[in-house]
């Protein structure tokens, strides 16, 4: 290798190293920030041992939000027999229903298990993560709310949500929007009142309170009734923690829950990868500049021009 001057070598090393260090430190502080959730975040503990599948919560939600008339009365329990997609799927939340209750026949016990399903109001929501126009906001009260005015209708949030909760008004040609539970944010949560479904439940299967307290309540219920509950609070850590958590007497996969979800936020899957971008943008130019200087040998243009002329002949 023709001698690169020591000065040039040191220069290129410093440039490469310096920009790499700068990029890395800024990447680290951005990517490694953990969000533990707002301390005052409210939550709901759903105790499946208390739910009797009366669907009063569905009726209360419908009334509270002025939702369209349902196909069947809310005290019609034939809805529990409805299946879709060749029997693989039970009822889902729709553009007319922010919440549904499903029935699950379980292997062990005689009695079926009922489960109320709605947006889980995750601490670090995947829908919010996936939205490039910031249509979602995780409020400090705990609700994940949606702003239809900025939404562009890409529906990436529907793909991102690990619980497949957001519904879409496909029927609306000009003003479609995402439809999902908003934790009764406008009318109730901001006024210190519980959501309509919680208030309506006759069995108090839904317990409203601060999320931090509910985690303790849930574990205390398990501790005091070891034969009654499975020793797990669903939503405590799933996808980084959700505001709506569940207790069950049967294994959660038998009650329709996805038990293969990761126990850290969906955001983490892309955070580290995307966090490398500033570093790449900083290092590669400097690195390749260094290579270029090394390769040139630092002898100047005249030398290389001569070489070209010789070659060209």
């Amino acid at each position: 290798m023709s001698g690169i001057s020591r000065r040039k070598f040191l220069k290129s090393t410093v440039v490469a190293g310096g920009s790499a260090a700068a990029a890395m430190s800024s990447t680290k502080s951005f990517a490694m920030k953990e969000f533990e959730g707002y301390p005052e975040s409210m939550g709901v503990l759903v105790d499946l041992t208390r739910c009797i599948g009366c669907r009063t919560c569905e009726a209360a939600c419908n009334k509270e939000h002025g939702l369209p008339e349902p196909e069947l009365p809310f005290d019609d329990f034939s809805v529990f027999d409805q299946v879709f997609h060749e029997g693989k799927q039970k009822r889902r939340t729709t553009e007319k229903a922010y919440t549904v209750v499903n029935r699950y026949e379980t292997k062990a016990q005689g009695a079926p298990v009922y489960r109320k399903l709605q947006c889980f109001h995750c601490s670090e929501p995947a829908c919010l993560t996936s939205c490039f126009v910031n249509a979602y906001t995780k409020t400090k009260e705990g609700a994940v709310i949606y702003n239809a005015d900025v939404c562009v209708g890409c529906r990436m949030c529907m793909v991102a949500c690990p619980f497949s909760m957001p519904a879409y008004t496909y029927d609306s040609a000009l003003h479609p929007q995402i439809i999902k539970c908003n934790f009764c944010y406008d009318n109730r949560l901001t006024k210190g009142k519980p959501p309509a479904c919680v208030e309506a439940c006759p069995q108090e299967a839904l317990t409203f309170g601060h999320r931090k307290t509910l985690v303790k309540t849930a574990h205390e219920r398990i501790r005091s009734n070891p034969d009654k509950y499975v020793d797990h609070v669903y939503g405590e850590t799933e996808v980084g923690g959700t505001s709506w958590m569940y207790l069950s007497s049967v294994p959660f996969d038998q009650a329709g829950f996805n038990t293969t979800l990761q126990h850290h936020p969906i955001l983490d899957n892309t955070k580290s990868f995307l966090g490398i971008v500033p570093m790449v943008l900083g290092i590669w130019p400097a690195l390749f500049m260094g290579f270029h200087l090394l390769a040139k040998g630092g002898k100047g243009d005249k030398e290389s021009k001569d070489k070209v002329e010789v070659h060209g002949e």
Partner: protein
Amino acid sequence: MQIRKIRIMTGIILALFFISAPAFGVDDAPPTSVRIDSLSHLYEGVDFDHELHVGIEENCSVCHHHRFSSEVAADRCAACHSECGGTFSPTCSDCHVAEPFTGKHIRQMEEDPHRFHVDITGLKGAYHLKCLNCHIETGAPTECVDCHERTDAGNRFYRSGKYAPTGGKSGGSHE
């Protein structure tokens, strides 16, 4: 004259005492029927056949678990409360409030580090959990309307009866 006045006064005082005896926790015969309707809106109030239930379960503590003049109902309670005497009132709403999720009640449960019973259901939940759990076990009636009739407001709420959906295009995502 003086003695007569004293006797009359004594008689009045004794009469008042016996009339108000229940307020002092002196045991009456339990009521035969109790009207439960403090929360009625979607359903009518309940005419609760207390006499029937006393006949089924002699231990008052099974339902009135805050009243220990009879045996303590659960071992877990006896761990701390085995020496307690009876309470004045067997009323559920003394501990189970009608609105358990107001900011005030939530704070009350969360902020007192010396309070032991913090996972107390509200009144509606207490009624249904207490009653239905036993009804399910014993095969007693469990339909909502078995205990209380639906009101008109209730029928409108559940879109039931004369308020049932009339059909037509529903437009759900699974149509």
